[in-house]
């Protein structure tokens, strides 16, 4: 079965407009993060305590908040998860300035105890079950942040070098631009949703980057091949041709992935939910970024440095 005949869409005609559009989304995100503190570090990166509880009798977010406010913990982040009305996730946000880290850890622990006590009221573990409890000290939070950044940067450098060797330097540069945009735009949209950043979210981001680089390389591979076949064509024409030739594949692959993620989003339960959500944004973005960032960057780079068009290998 064929989705459609190879079309002739002149994708590259709109490259400047597309670049501006991307820039605006990224800027909006950066602004939202920088000015309105849109990105909330979760317990993994921000430190503090995250408690997941299950009530025997259904309750409401507002009631939980009031119960906590009564004991002076009104600032806690409360999120309903999983079974409607029964399961909640509470993160204490009080900044504790202790003399040393150990005291800070213990203070976090005591806060968690107070949260549980307040919610239990005079009921016991039957009334409220604590399903998980995670405390991350300030030092580890900082370390996790540092290590995640470090790992990502090294991974990007590794990809840049490989692509530069297998293709050309400008393709590697374009890939890095693309991935940076993927991360920025996805985070930008994520920042408007009020969800927190935790380690699984970083894994999701890396997966998005993985899909996007896969997409980008498939197109670049086709460009590499077509450059050898049609030596007289301009690079822009070759890119248009390659994008059109690969369009069927792009649609089918992305469509499959999108469906898969939709399944995860619907059936995955609360732990996978955030993850699937950010992935859904990311897959759409990844396809877009291949067409309207990877390719334009290569074209602009070649114009800028006046290298000969296409491949000469």
């Amino acid at each position, binding site marked *: 079965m064929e*989705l459609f005949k190879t079309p002739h869409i002149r994708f590259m005609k709109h490259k400047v407009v597309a670049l501006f559009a991307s820039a605006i989304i990224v800027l909006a995100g950066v602004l939202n993060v920088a000015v309105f503190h849109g990105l909330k570090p979760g317990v993994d990166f921000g430190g503090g305590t995250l408690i997941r509880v299950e009530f025997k009798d259904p309750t409401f977010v507002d009631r939980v908040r009031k119960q906590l406010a009564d004991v002076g913990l009104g600032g806690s982040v409360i999120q309903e998860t999983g079974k409607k009305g029964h399961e909640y996730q509470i993160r204490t946000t009080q900044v504790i300035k202790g003399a040393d880290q150990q005291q800070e850890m213990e203070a976090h622990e005591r806060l968690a105890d107070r949260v549980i006590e307040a919610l239990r009221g005079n009921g016991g573990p039957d009334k409220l079950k604590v399903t998980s409890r995670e405390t991350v000290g300030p030092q580890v939070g900082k370390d996790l942040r540092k290590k995640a950044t470090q790992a990502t940067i090294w991974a990007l450098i590794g990809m840049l070098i490989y692509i530069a060797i297998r293709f050309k330097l400008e393709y590697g540069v374009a890939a890095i631009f693309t991935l940076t945009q993927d991360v920025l735009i996805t985070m930008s949209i994520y920042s408007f949703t009020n969800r927190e950043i935790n380690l699984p979210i970083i894994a999701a981001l890396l997966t998005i980057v*993985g899909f996007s680089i896969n997409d980008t390389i498939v197109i670049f591979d086709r460009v590499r091949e077509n450059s050898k076949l049609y030596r007289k064509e301009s690079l822009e024409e070759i890119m248009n041709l390659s994008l059109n030739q690969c369009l069927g594949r792009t649609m*089918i692959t992305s469509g*499959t992935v999108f469906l898969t993620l939709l399944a995860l989003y619907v059936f995955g339960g609360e732990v996978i939910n955030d993850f699937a959500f950010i992935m859904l944004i990311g897959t759409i973005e990844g396809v877009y970024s291949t067409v309207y960032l990877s390719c334009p960057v290569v074209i602009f780079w070649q114009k800028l440095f006046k290298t000969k068009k296409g491949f000469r290998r």
Partner: protein
Amino acid sequence: MRKGLQWKLILALAVLGLSIFLAYPPKEKIKLGLDLKGGIHLVLQVLTEDAVNAETDQEILRFQELFKKNDITFQAATKDQPGRFVFTGTSASQEGKTRDLIDQYTRDWDYSFTGDRLIFTIKTLVTQVLKDQAVNQTVETIRNRIDQFGVAEPLIQRQGSERIVVELPGVTDPDRVKDLIKVTAVLEWKLVKAGPAADEETLTKEYGGKVPEDMEVLKGDPKKGEAGFFLVSRVASVTGKDLRMVRRSVDEWNNPAVSFSLNSEGARRFEKVTGENIGKPLAIILDGKVQSAPNINARISDSGIIQGRFTVEQAEDLVLVLKSGALPAGIRYLEERTIGPSLGADSVREGLLAGLVAILLVMTFMVFFYRLSGLNAVVALILNVVILFGCLGYFKATLTLPGIAGIILSIGMAVDANVLIFERIKEERAVGKNIPSAILLGFSRAFSAIFDSNLTTIISAIFLFQFGTGPIKGYAVTLIIGLVANMFTAVFVSHLIFDVAVPKSAKRLSI
């Protein structure tokens, strides 16, 4: 069947068989991470400075003894800071002799004479060795304690220079385990000179308001009902190192207690101390806190009992930590996570359901689009997942939530590889190639794209594995395995199926 094809078929089946063998039954072979199984995850820091401090204290004592034995005069020896101490009142005329003596005795310390002061500083290299040993010993001691406590498949691992990661699957009572790990377990018996008293002043009144040099003030452990302060001798009569055996028992009122016996060297000292001090209190001190201070009723030689208002559990835990030995340095917690078993089980169930639905969707999709060729892709996809789990079983890798993300990405890329190949075959058919050569060209032309995209992602995953922490590592592992398996299934196995299923003379290709 064509030659060579048989061998390829055998190879593919062998890989399938081996993978099933390695992954079946999955409940036993595939290790689930704490986020999926429930349990406790702790990160602790070893206060390595403690080890240097202890070494400094001991070295001061040894030097004092050495100097006394060799008639080298000095007034006092004091510790400046961990790793540095000063002898005052030394005489210049003995400098040569002192130098010879020190050089003969140890090379671990740098020293210098300034006036009548002799300053010792520990060598940086020695400090590093001490700290390193302290961390390794701590890992061993904690492992001992956990083993005796009885946890299936605990993970106790050094991380970096002074951190230790402890993962205890299935354990859900963090407080008890934390206390068990954290207690330094330095047990000492010291003679009580005065006390208990409400404050330090009362204690030292007898000594002119100052703590004499051979004594120290210790606090009682309020949890054990000893709230006051004690003035005790600085040198311990007997310590935990002299223990030969400890076990939980009861005292004469049937309260939980810990009975012990001493080795011959310890027994000799204990006999002397108790014999000379009948009627006086002897403090039992754990980690610098007085547990109880019973009066010595009679000369005791090699065995006795420790009382301290224990619960049964506390007495058991004390036995456990005394058996496993003292920690060489203090520790503190940096991170602790307790995941309840129900949450983990929910995650697994939901993850499995979601994964199953997702895979079924993908398969339906592929068969719908590519008909029989789609079925080929489905076979390759199943084989990919089987190999992935086989490898997870073989490498004893842990499957975590982010690990599932890695599997999703590798499945996505596996589908993409098949789509690339099939689209390419269609293109070749469209320009009029016959079926066998269209298949051959489809695979060879799509190969560079598949190879480059998989390898790029593998490269990035290797860096993530190298530099990332726990969850990110789990992600990288499944991704690397999945993509390597993908290169095998999507390119090799899928091609093989075409070769076997499509005869050379085929007129139609279901794609």
